[in-house]
């Protein structure tokens, strides 16, 4: 095969796009044609030169582009950190509020001791009088209003008092 005819195959061979048959023909040709072998090397060197011919990436390229995009309303605005925090803070805040409501509603039970049916089990004494346990609970009501009154050891010793369904009526 004439060199003129096989050069296009060599070009595809250099790009890894020659068929197996074309690759075999090119390699056979290289064995007997130093000129085409040299041409193949020049083609490969040219490919490397193109890869190295890169443009510069300006440091403000991204900033300029995104400013233009925001102007055209093509880029969604980033949510503020404040709004994001509020959204996620809502979960623990809601949980804390629910717990506080539950605790406070539980504390309502011993306040009305006019009926013995409302009295916690094991609590004796005449109606209208508070047992030592009740007094302790009442004392903690102040703490609920001002949690700073507690220190760490007291928090560890605290128990959650939950009335039974019978007590709730």
């Amino acid at each position, binding site marked *: 095969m004439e060199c003129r005819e096989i050069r296009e195959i060599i070009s595809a061979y250099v790009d890894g796009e020659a068929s197996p048959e074309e690759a075999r023909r090119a390699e056979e040709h290289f064995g007997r044609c130093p000129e085409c072998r040299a041409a193949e090397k020049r083609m490969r060197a*040219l490919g490397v030169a*193109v890869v190295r*011919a890169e443009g*510069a990436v300006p440091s403000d390229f991204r900033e300029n582009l995104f400013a*233009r995009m925001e102007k055209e309303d*093509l880029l969604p605005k980033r949510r503020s950190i404040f709004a994001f925090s509020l959204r996620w803070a809502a979960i623990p805040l809601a949980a804390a509020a629910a717990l506080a409501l539950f605790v406070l509603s539980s504390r309502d039970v011993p306040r009305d001791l006019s009926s013995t049916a409302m009295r916690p089990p094991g609590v004796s004494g005449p109606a209208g009088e508070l047992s030592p346990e009740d007094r302790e609970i009442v004392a903690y009501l102040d703490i609920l209003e001002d949690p700073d009154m507690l220190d760490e050891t007291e928090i560890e010793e605290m128990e959650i008092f939950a009335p039974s369904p019978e007590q709730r009526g």
Partner: protein
Amino acid sequence: MRTDAELMALYQKGSRDAFEELFARHHRRVIHFCYRMTGDQARAEEAAQEVFLRIARAASTYQPTARFTTWMYTITRRTTLNFLRDEKEPGEKVPIDTTGEGYDATEGISLPGRGDWDPEQVAWEAQLKDKLLEALQKLPEVNRAAFVLNRGEGLSYEEVATVLGVTVQAVKSRIFRARETLLAELSGLVE
């Protein structure tokens, strides 16, 4: 890691992060392609900005069945083509100037190691880059695009054919012709 197509789908739904990720992945390739196609740094930057604006504007038309990079390079090639046509207007021609302020002559050249520093080698590579960019501009646009997409951007012949809207055989032929012309232009520099 999300694919480009997945990121495009997320951007279509309003995700800013998705577009930022796409930009981070591809902006260098777009700038380099525009630079090789126009031979001018300022024009390349301007064209590359326009490419991403067009991608954003056309996001709703993107179909995940098409490979994102192929779609992106189709837009990029059309954009540079418009810029090149604009350049042909009288008085609009922007010369290739790689000595201007802000231009980094070492950009894209793999520098030698500390012990192998060779100013002659660096100067030679810079000269080769200038000559190559000049020679590229002399090629017919479609031959230049085929060669740059394949050798510069790493697209297969089939992908190049999709971007250019021609057959694979036509791509093979155009790349060969581009190579022959470039090697003749760079005779003595590329051995």
